[in-house]
């Protein structure tokens, strides 16, 4: 009996401990570092503002050096190939990345990430590889979108195979505004589906315990009774 009480106390202690952190401490799957939102969703809890980033690319032997620009919090990385820029009249290329405030809300699209404005003071002439990190608290984005202005239009870019969890990547031949997300009418219910499924799973488990527990208890009592009868 004492051990059953101990089990109940351990269960209560677990619920208190688990309640104090964001859900989803996957066993064995590294939870990503918290995403810094410009516009945090309600479930995000404490939120730090996202960082910007900048890079000065050198001109070596008449062409721009290969290099990567990234935000200081690592939420966006863009890699440039050798000679990625038209460097006519340039001694270097300056690239800057800035999270956009306020958050754009284009019709028909839902952005899972911040929107970032990537600029360079020389024209891009070779595709650049763009990687965006996203939060585990939002539905996975399906695409990266690009626009020349915040008013749109937003172009859907082909995403590459996911190389790392919680990241989405693409290649782009233009700079501008970038955000990862999905069409509102496509998988906008994706985040909600788990919201509905998990309580159902827990309810089903409780029902299974109750339903299976009753016949098992009856069976056990019957066996105990027949054992006692045999002894008599």
């Amino acid at each position: 009996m004492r051990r059953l009480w101990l089990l109940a106390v351990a269960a209560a202690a677990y619920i208190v401990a688990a309640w104090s952190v964001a859900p989803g401490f996957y066993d064995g799957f590294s939870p990503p570092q918290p995403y810094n939102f410009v516009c945090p969703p309600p479930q995000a809890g404490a939120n730090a503002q996202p960082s910007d980033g900048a890079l000065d690319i050198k001109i070596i032997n008449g062409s721009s050096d290969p290099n990567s620009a990234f935000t200081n919090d690592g939420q966006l990385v863009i890699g440039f190939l050798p000679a990625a820029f038209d460097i006519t009249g340039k001694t270097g290329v300056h690239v800057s990345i800035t999270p956009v405030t306020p958050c754009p809300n284009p019709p028909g699209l839902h952005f899972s990430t911040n929107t970032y404005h990537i600029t360079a003071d020389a024209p891009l002439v070779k595709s650049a590889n763009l990687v965006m990190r996203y939060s585990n608290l939002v539905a996975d984005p399906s695409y990266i979108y690009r626009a020349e202005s915040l008013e749109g239009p937003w172009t859907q870019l082909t995403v590459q195979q996911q190389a790392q969890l919680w990241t989405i990547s693409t290649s782009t031949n233009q700079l501008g505004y970038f955000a990862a997300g999905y069409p509102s009418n496509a998988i906008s219910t994706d985040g909600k589906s788990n919201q509905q499924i998990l309580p159902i799973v827990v309810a089903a488990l409780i029902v299974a315990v109750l339903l299976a527990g009753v016949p098992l208890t009856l069976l056990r009592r019957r066996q105990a009774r027949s054992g006692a009868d045999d002894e008599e």
Partner: protein
Amino acid sequence: MLALEWSRALVSTIPGAVVPALLIGGLGLGLVAWGWSPERLGLGTSKLGWRVIGGFGLAAVLLLPAAARAAAVPLLPGGLMAAAVAVSIGEEIAFRGTLFAALEELGGAPLAVIGTTLAWTAAHALSHPAEFLPAVAAAGLLLAIWRMTFRDLVAPIVAHTIADLAL
């Protein structure tokens, strides 16, 4: 066991290596039980129905804090399902199975409960941010007390697997 878990956590950070690391890590943890009888590990077949039902109950407890805040629940990427099953079973066999049996033999059930909980928490130190570790420890303690109370590993395996798959 700790070296295996920490190696797995480090390898998982390499792009594309998450699923193989989890599968191989889970298998490796399972192999720790080599040579131990199923009964010593808590894997005997008596009262199996009760133990599976107990696993459902434990899973409900593990999932309850997340289910109550379903709006904040992250989604387990589909590709990780098989890896989640492998690592859940491997960890239970290694920690609450083999290590528990060895420590119980050495110093009794309390040492086994405390020792497996500490080892389990340390095993997750590299893969989880520090603020998650009290919850990880509490889950380990709950599963270890179940193992001690009912001398059963089936329910912790069932609960752990369901919890990892659902979150």
